[in-house]
C-alpha cells in the first residue's frame, strides 16, 4: 500500500513538460499543408452590411474565403439561447463581430489580406451604456433589452424598510475585466463532409463539440475535439473557443487543408469575452441593535450584444448578492441587459465578484452610518448553521464566519493597525488604511445545473499496471491532472506515479461537464473517486480481490482481469448529495451543494500627492473543506488574489464607440511582480462529506473578496466614498475632489 498523497505537495503531473518547454500548446502544433486563418471583423458597433470589398491588389484567388453564405443554416453558435451568429449576416450587432474568414499558406500575406477587406456598413444607432439600455429608447434585444431577469423575494422588504431604524442607500459599479491568459486563443482544424477534428486552447471540450455538431448537423462521433495544452483560461476559454473552432472548421472544410486560427494579443483582447460590467443599488434597513432587517438589492449586468452565458452569470451574481448574512426580508432584482459591445462572458467568479464588491463595500458604509465598527456589524449578522438564506437554502453544514473573522483580523493585526493608522494619518501625506471583506462562494453549477449536466467519468486499468482517468475536465494550470491522480492513488492505495490522466479528447473521454464553476475538484473529483471504487468492486465481484483490496493486490487483480477480459473500465455518473433540491420555477432552494467561506484583509498606503494606492499586506483566510494539495491550493488563492488586485486597482477597459480602445498589454495594465504585496494565504480545513476526501471548490473564491477589502481599506485611509472599481489614481482623486467640492457648497 503506497503512502497517502492527498494533502501532500506531490509534483504537478505535467510539471516537467512545462518547465522544459516540451508542453505543446496549440500554436506549437503544425501539420503538412497548413493554412493560416484570419478573421475580418466589424468596424462599427451596429449597422447593416451593404457589401464586402476585397481590395489591395492581393492575389485573392489564392485565398480561401468564408462568409455567412458558407455557414450552414441557421448560422448560430450553440450555447444557451443559440442567438449568436457564427459569422455576421446582414446585421452587425457589436464592434469586432466576425464577418469574413480568410486562409492562406503565407501567414504574413493572410495578415495583409485581413487589413485589405473592406466591410461597408450602414450604421444603426448603438446602445453603449447600461443606462441607455435600461432606458429602452433604442431596443436591440427582445422588447426591452433584457436578456434575463431574476427576482428573489423573501419576507416583506417594503414593510421592513418602513419600520427600520436606519436605512442606508448606496450605488456601486464595477468595470469590465479582461481574462488576459498569457496564451491567446486558437484552434487547428481538419475537416471534410465526413467529419471535423479540432485541437485547441479550451476549457470545455464538450461545449465545442456541441457547437460543431449543431452547426454542421453532424452526428456526435463525426466531431472530435482535443484539448491542446492550455495556457490559462479563467473563464475566457469557456464559451469563446466554440467560435474559433467553428471558424477554423469552416475554412478547413472549404479549403480541404488543415487550418490554424490563432489570435494575436490585440485581437484576443478586443474581440473575445470579458467580465460583465455591473451596477448594484442597495437599500438596507437596520434595527437599532445593528441587525439587518431588510436588504433591497438591484443588480444589473451589461451583457453585451448577445445573450451567450449572461443568464447564468446573472444567476450566480444574484445568488451571492446578499452574501454570508442572515436577513429575514430580502429582495434581489437581477437583470442582464443588452448593449452594442462584444458579448461579456465567463470570468473567474462569474457574477459573484460584482455583487459581492457592492455588498461588502456597502456593509462598511452601513456600519459607519450606524456607528458600528465594520467587524461588529458583520458579526451581528453572519448566517449560521441551521438558518435559511434569502434564496431558501438551509445551511446544513457548519458555518463559522465569526471564527474566520477573528482569525483573519488577528493574522492581519487589524485592530492595532486601524488605531495606529487613525492616529498617524492626520499629519502624513501618505495615508494608511486597513479593510476587509467577508464572503462566500458556492461550488459547482448553480441550482439544478449539476443534475442537468449529469456528468460522467470513466476510470480504466491498463495492462502495464497503471490506472487512467478519462474525464473531459481540462488542465488549464489549476492542477486537474494532479488532484485527479492524488484522488485515485489514495482511493486505490496505489502510487501517484501509477496514475495517468488522459488528454481530454471527445473521441476518448466521456462528458464530465465543463471546467468551470469551481466544480472540478469537488464535483468531478468525487466522480473520479466513485469510478475508482466501482473499478475496485468489479474486481471484488470477479473474485479477484478481497473486499476493499488496494495497493499491489489491486494492481495484481487488474492484470489478471485484463488478461482474461481484455479491458477493465468503470464509470460513474453524477447524482446530487442527499437532500439537495432546487426549484427552477420558483428560483428557490439549495443554490449550491457547498460554499467556501472567507475573510480577506488588505492594508494599504495611499500617496495623496499621486493618489496611487500601494497594498502593504494581504491576508486571505478561507475554509474550503479539505486541502487536497497545499501548494496548488495556495497557488489558486495567490493567483486569484493577484487577478483581483488588478480588478480593484489597475485593470480598466477603455470603451470608445463600443470597442475596447486599450487592447494591448502596454495600456491595459495587469499586475507585474513589482505590483503585488506579500499575499499571505491561510486555510481552515473542515472536510465536506460529499467532496472527494472532504474537498470543496476553491478556484473562483479568491476573486470575490479582494476588491471590496481594498476599497474598504482605501476608504479607511482617505475617507473617500469609494464606490467604483478599478480605483485608479485618477478616479480616487476625482472622488476626493467631488467630496471636497460638496463640502464647500
Amino acid at each position, binding site marked *: 500500500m503506497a503512502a497517502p498523497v492527498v494533502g501532500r505537495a506531490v509534483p*504537478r503531473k505535467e510539471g*516537467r513538460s512545462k518547465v522544459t*518547454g516540451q508542453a505543446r500548446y496549440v*500554436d506549437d502544433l503544425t501539420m503538412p499543408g497548413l493554412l493560416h486563418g484570419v478573421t475580418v471583423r466589424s468596424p462599427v458597433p451596429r449597422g447593416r452590411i451593404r457589401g464586402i470589398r476585397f481590395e489591395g491588389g492581393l492575389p485573392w484567388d489564392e485565398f480561401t474565403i468564408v462568409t455567412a453564405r458558407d455557414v450552414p443554416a441557421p448560422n448560430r453558435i450553440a450555447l444557451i439561447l443559440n442567438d449568436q451568429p457564427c459569422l455576421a449576416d446582414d446585421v452587425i450587432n457589436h464592434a469586432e463581430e466576425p464577418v469574413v474568414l480568410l486562409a492562406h499558406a503565407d501567414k*504574413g500575406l493572410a495578415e495583409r489580406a485581413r487589413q485589405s477587406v473592406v466591410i461597408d456598413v450602414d450604421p444603426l444607432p448603438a446602445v453603449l451604456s447600461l443606462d441607455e439600455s435600461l432606458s429602452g429608447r433604442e431596443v436591440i434585444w427582445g422588447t426591452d433589452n433584457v436578456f434575463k431577469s431574476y427576482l428573489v423575494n423573501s419576507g416583506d422588504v417594503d414593510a421592513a424598510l418602513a419600520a427600520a431604524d436606519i436605512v442606508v442607500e448606496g450605488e456601486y459599479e464595477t468595470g469590465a475585466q479582461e481574462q488576459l491568459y498569457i496564451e491567446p486563443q486558437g484552434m487547428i482544424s481538419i475537416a471534410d463532409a465526413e467529419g471535423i477534428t479540432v485541437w485547441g486552447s479550451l476549457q470545455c471540450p464538450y461545449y465545442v463539440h456541441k457547437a460543431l455538431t449543431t452547426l454542421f448537423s453532424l452526428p456526435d462521433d463525426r466531431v472530435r475535439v482535443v484539448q491542446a495544452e492550455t495556457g490559462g483560461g479563467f473563464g475566457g476559454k469557456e464559451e469563446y473557443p466554440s467560435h474559433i473552432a467553428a471558424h477554423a472548421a469552416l475554412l478547413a472544410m472549404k479549403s480541404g487543408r488543415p487550418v490554424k486560427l490563432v489570435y494575436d494579443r490585440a485581437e484576443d483582447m478586443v474581440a473575445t469575452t470579458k467580465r460583465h460590467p455591473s451596477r448594484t443599488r442597495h437599500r438596507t434597513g437596520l434595527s437599532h441593535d445593528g441587525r439587518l432587517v431588510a436588504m433591497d438589492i438591484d443588480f444589473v449586468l451589461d451583457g453585451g450584444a448577445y445573450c451567450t452565458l449572461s443568464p447564468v452569470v446573472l444567476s450566480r451574481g444574484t445568488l451571492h448578492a446578499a452574501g454570508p448574512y442572515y436577513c429575514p426580508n430580502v429582495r434581489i432584482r437581477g437583470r442582464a441587459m443588452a448593449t452594442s459591445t462584444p458579448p461579456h462572458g465567463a470570468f473567474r467568479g462569474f457574477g459573484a465578484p460584482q455583487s459581492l464588491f457592492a455588498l461588502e463595500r456597502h456593509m462598511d458604509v452601513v456600519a459607519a452610518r450606524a456607528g458600528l465598527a465594520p467587524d461588529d456589524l458583520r458579526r451581528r449578522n453572519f448566517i449560521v448553521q441551521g438558518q435559511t438564506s434569502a434564496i431558501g437554502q438551509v445551511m446544513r453544514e457548519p458555518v463559522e464566519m465569526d471564527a474566520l473573522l477573528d482569525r483573519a483580523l488577528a493574522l492581519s493585526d487589524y485592530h492595532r493597525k486601524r488605531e495606529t493608522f487613525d492616529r498617524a494619518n492626520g499629519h502624513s501625506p501618505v495615508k494608511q488604511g486597513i479593510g476587509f471583506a467577508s464572503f462566500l462562494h458556492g461550488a459547482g453549477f448553480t441550482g439544478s445545473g449539476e443534475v442537468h449536466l449529469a456528468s460522467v467519468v470513466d476510470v480504466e486499468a491498463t495492462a502495464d499496471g497503471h490506472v487512467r482517468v478519462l474525464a473531459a475536465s481540462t488542465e488549464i494550470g489549476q492542477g486537474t491532472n494532479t488532484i485527479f491522480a492524488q484522488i485515485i492513488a489514495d482511493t486505490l492505495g496505489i502510487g501517484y506515479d501509477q496514475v495517468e490522466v488522459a488528454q481530454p479528447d471527445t473521441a476518448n473521454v466521456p462528458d464530465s461537464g465543463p471546467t468551470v464553476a469551481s466544480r472540478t475538484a469537488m464535483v468531478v473529483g468525487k466522480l473520479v473517486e466513485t469510478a475508482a471504487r466501482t473499478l475496485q468492486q468489479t474486481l471484488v465481484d470477479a473474485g479477484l480481490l478481497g473486499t476493499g483490496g488496494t495497493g499491489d493486490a489491486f494492481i495484481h487483480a487488474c492484470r489478471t482481469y485484463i488478461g482474461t477480459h481484455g479491458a477493465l473500465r468503470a464509470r460513474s455518473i453524477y447524482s446530487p448529495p442527499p437532500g439537495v433540491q432546487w426549484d427552477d420555477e420558483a428560483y428557490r432552494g439549495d443554490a449550491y451543494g457547498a460554499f467556501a467561506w472567507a475573510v480577506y484583509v488588505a492594508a494599504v498606503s495611499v500617496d495623496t500627492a499621486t493618489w496611487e494606492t500601494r497594498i502593504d499586506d494581504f491576508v486571505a483566510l478561507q475554509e474550503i473543506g479539505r486541502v487536497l494539495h497545499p501548494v496548488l491550493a495556495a497557488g489558486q488563492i495567490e493567483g486569484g488574489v493577484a487577478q483581483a488586485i488588478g480588478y480593484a486597482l489597475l485593470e480598466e477597459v477603455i470603451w470608445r464607440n463600443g470597442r475596447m480602445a486599450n487592447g494591448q498589454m502596454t495600456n491595459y495594465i495587469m499586475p507585474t511582480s*513589482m505590483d503585488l504585496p506579500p499575499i499571505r494565504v491561510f486555510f481552515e480545513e473542515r472536510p465536506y462529506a460529499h467532496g472527494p476526501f472532504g474537498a470543496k471548490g476553491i478556484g473562483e473564491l479568491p476573486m470575490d473578496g479582494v476588491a471590496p477589502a481594498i476599497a474598504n481599506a482605501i476608504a479607511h485611509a482617505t475617507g473617500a466614498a469609494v464606490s467604483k472599481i478599478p480605483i485608479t489614481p485618477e478616479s480616487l482623486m476625482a472622488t476626493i475632489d467631488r467630496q471636497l467640492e460638496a463640502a464647500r457648497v
Partner: protein
Amino acid sequence: MSDAAPCTIRFVVNGRAVDVDAHPMARLLDVLRVELGLTGTKEGCGEGECGACSVLVNGELVNSCLTPVLQAAGATITTIEGIAGADATLSALQQAFIEHGGAQCGICTPGMIIAATSLLARHPDPTEAEVRTGLAGNLCRCTGYMRIFEAVMKAAAR
C-alpha cells in the same frame, strides 16, 4: 519586410550551430519557433510586454518578439530547450519551479525560467527585491508570482 531579400544567418542555439534562410527583419521568435522548431519559446503579446518569448542572446535577456533575426547573426542563443543538461537533468531552477508551484498553466514558464536564469547569473544570492525586479518584465496571470519568487530563492540557495 517581405520585400527584403532573404539571407542566410548563422548563429549558435543551445550549443548547436545553425544556418537559417530568413528575411533580416524576421522576428527571432518566429525563426526559433517555425524554422528551428524550438516551440518552447512562446508568444504572449508580440510587443515586448509579457516576456513569454524571453531568450538569452550572448547571455543577455531579450524579448525575441522584438529582436530582428539579423541581430542574432554570430550570436550564441539559449532557449528553454537548452536549460536542462544534455542528459535531460533539470536545472535547479526548473526543479524548484516544479516543487514550489512556480508553474501553473506553463505558458509564461519558459520565459520566466530564462529570465530567472539570467537573474541568478547576475545575482547568485538575490534578495526578494532583486527577484521581483529581475522578473518584472515577465507576466504571469496564474500564480500571483509568490511561488515563482519562492522557487527562485530556493534554487539560488541550492
